[in-house]
């Protein structure tokens, strides 16, 4: 029973193992020691409270980005704009974080988070509306919005919102009343990420809204027949996806970076796509997937300094894992797994929900 429930995890775990093995081979071919690299990852990501804290901090925005992508995919939408929405969340919350100084932390921090959520949702909402009303594909729209947002945030951080008297383009630091610290040694942002994960899981699995969303994603004709408004669900799902990405950006600014600085959040949204795939679009698997990527990301400097391995190896490993998950047939063939004739087989013995 319990073993059956783990079956969906077999493929991603196998993909990660194969990817790490290939990574080790490359490291060896490159003349470094795979063992050294492994040690470096261990030291940087897991060896003590500080290392674990760093891993959790790296994983936090990835959880949000992964959830954002998942919410879209469930509704049949590919939100490739998570990166841009995350940046909007990051910069607007950072702005609120330095600008509205003097507020009580009880007001200031939630306000900053809310601003990140709302402004992150905005571009995604627009993409959703264009999709629902005009049939413009969300991938096209979000890619274009990404470009606009990259330039806009660069300009804001190097212009109107730039820290006065500095040469680096970045905003002033966020004041203490809006900073996210640690509770019981855990980064607050990570705690929030876990809570939001549970909420998203509950929404998708247990609520009528989640059912609407999944029905539109699975068969929009049947959704229409069943009286579900495909357009409204499309807009809602995109907006929620953007809100999650925006929240991820806000948590990154308020909890880790302490301000907005272009480049600090690069790639997080795209890692969200990797995570959604590794997690096989299941919110329950997002945290482990994000921790895996977070650990690799947290160790990149130690890899270089401690093991003399180019940190690009991390991207190679992730790329291979992604490829293997995205091409399950290839992996099945490589590992000589029998073709899965029916997922029904698994479903027969399995309940749903929890």
């Amino acid at each position, binding site marked *: 029973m319990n073993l059956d429930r783990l079956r969906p995890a077999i493929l991603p775990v196998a993909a990660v193992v194969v990817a790490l093995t290939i990574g080790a081979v490359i490291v060896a071919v490159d003349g470094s020691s795979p063992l050294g690299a492994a040690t470096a990852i261990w030291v940087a990501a897991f060896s003590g409270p500080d290392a674990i804290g760093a891993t959790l901090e790296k994983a936090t925005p990835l959880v949000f980005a992964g959830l954002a992508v998942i919410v879209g995919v469930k509704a049949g939408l590919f939100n490739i704009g998570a990166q841009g929405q995350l940046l909007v969340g990051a910069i607007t919350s950072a702005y609120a974080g330095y600008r509205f100084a003097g507020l009580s932390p009880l007001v200031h921090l939630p306000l900053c988070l809310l601003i990140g959520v709302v402004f992150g949702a905005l571009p995604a909402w627009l993409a959703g509306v264009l999709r629902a009303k005009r049939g413009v594909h969300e991938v096209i729209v979000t890619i274009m919005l990404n470009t606009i947002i990259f330039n806009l945030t660069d300009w804001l951080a190097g212009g109107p919102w730039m820290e006065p008297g500095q040469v680096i383009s970045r905003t002033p630091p966020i004041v203490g009343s809006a900073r996210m610290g640690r509770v019981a040694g855990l980064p607050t942002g990570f705690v929030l990420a876990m809570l939001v994960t549970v909420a998203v899981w509950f929404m998708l699995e247990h609520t009528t809204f989640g*059912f*609407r969303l999944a029905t539109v994603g*699975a*068969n929009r004709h049947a959704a229409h*027949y*069943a009286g579900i408004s495909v357009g409204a669900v499309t807009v809602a799902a995109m907006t929620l996806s953007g809100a999650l990405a925006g929240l991820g950006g806000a948590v990154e600014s308020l909890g880790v970076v302490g301000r907005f600085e272009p480049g600090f959040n690069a790639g997080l949204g795209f890692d969200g796509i990797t995570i959604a795939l590794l997690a096989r679009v299941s919110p329950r698997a997002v945290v482990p997937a994000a921790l895996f990527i977070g650990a690799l990301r947290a160790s990149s400097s130690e890899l270089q300094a401690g093991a003399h391995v180019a940190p690009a190896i991390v991207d190679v490993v992730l790329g291979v894992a992604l490829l293997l998950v995205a091409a399950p047939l290839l992996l099945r063939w490589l590992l000589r797994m029998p073709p899965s004739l029916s997922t*029904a087989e698994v*479903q*027969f013995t*399995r309940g749903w929900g929890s």
Partner: protein
Amino acid sequence: MSDSEEQPGADVVLEVRGLTKRFGPVVADSEVTLQLRRGEVLALLGENGAGKSTLVKMLVGLLRPDAGEIRIGGDVVRLRSPRDAIGRGIAVVHQHFQLVPVMTVAENVVLGAEPTRRGLFDHRKAAAEVRALSQRFGLAVEPDAVVQDLPIGMQQRVEIIKALYRGAEILILDEPTAVLTPVETDELLRIVAELAERGVGIIFITHKLREVMNGTDRVVVLRDGRVVGDVATADTDEAGLAALMVGRPVVLHVDKEPATPGATVLEIRGLEVDDDRGRLAVRGLDLDVRAGEILGIAGVQDNGQRELVEAICAMRPRRAGTVVLAGREVEGLDVRALHDLGVAHIPEDRDKHGLVGGYFVAENLVLNRFDQAPFSRWGRRDFAAIQRWARQLIADFDVRTPSVYARTDALSGGNKQKVVVARELSRESVLLVAAQPTRGVDVGSIEFIHQQLVAARDRGVAVLLVSAELEELFALSDRIAVIREGRVAAVLDAKSATRETVGLIMAGAAGH
């Protein structure tokens, strides 16, 4: 074939021995043994879920048997893919055609095995070969027609030509007539006879006993995955086959009292509706359906039936006209609102509209009520209530599924249909719009669904029945409206009307 008695097996082209297939706990086929001879039309008959399609999938390399062997021309073969199967001369025409809609007939036929001239696609040769095949087997298909412009029956013939072009000597047709009009069905039976005449061995799956009697040489009956009968068609009759299939005598005739119609529930005036391509399909249609009656819609396919149904159910916007439901104009109401007013709808295409294939059976049984009590409260779904309801419906409607948690797309075609029918018939409604309600359903279940439709009528539901089967229309309807070119050409009393009259009006004979 007269010498087959003296030389048993001499012209057996396909032989199946002990073929078994399991899906987890479900045994879909159990030690199936049968033979197909050259030039023979073999009917494969069985209840929904008996294992017919599964057997076919094994024969064309889509599924691997768990046990047993397949022999072609005497050699044991292992088929790993449809490509393997066609290499051995076996091809199948599935219910869902695998054609590229925007390409021509000739292009579709040769796709994957294109004739070339100096390395380039030789269009002229392709067209010529298709024309030759079409003529040889009397298929009357135009090679340069674009597939999406062809009626379903023609598209099916393109599939058949595709198989012949690849050298098929064994042709399997899985419920080919489920989507055909009666005229198209007769045509297909003629083509099948022609193919058999020229030596093709044919396995023909259908739920319609009349087709078995008229168009096949031998019948193999499956029940619960086992062969329970293998008889020459000439030695049996419809009642005998039905009893063999179901394991009990089946009433092939619907018992019903005369209707006692009440107030008009649905009143349509001057309705105009566009089809998917923006052409007017319903052109000023008037229709009344009263409480407690079954109004049947007869008509040649594509005369506006689909658009009419979808407009009534608010799935398609109307261009003009009024639709009054129980005294209320429903303009501007959406699918959901109509549903809440008591409109139940069995859609004609179960896979496109009626079901979400990846959902559990239980979820599909509440697909349009998922947000109502007791299936949800305060926006939270109540799985225990859904499960209880699903168990009940599965028992009541005899849906053959391993559990309420089976994925719906793993059900057999007829059982999927029963899921849709169960959902719609189990609801309190004032108007039931039933489009092809028994498509793909076995005789035993047709009997049951028909009884349920009559029972709904007797409870005072207004039933609008759209069916391609005149038989079904005559069995159930109290009045029959004949639709032609988007208008009601005539409304007849079902008791006094004859098939000939209805047929003539459908075809547009003068005087109507």
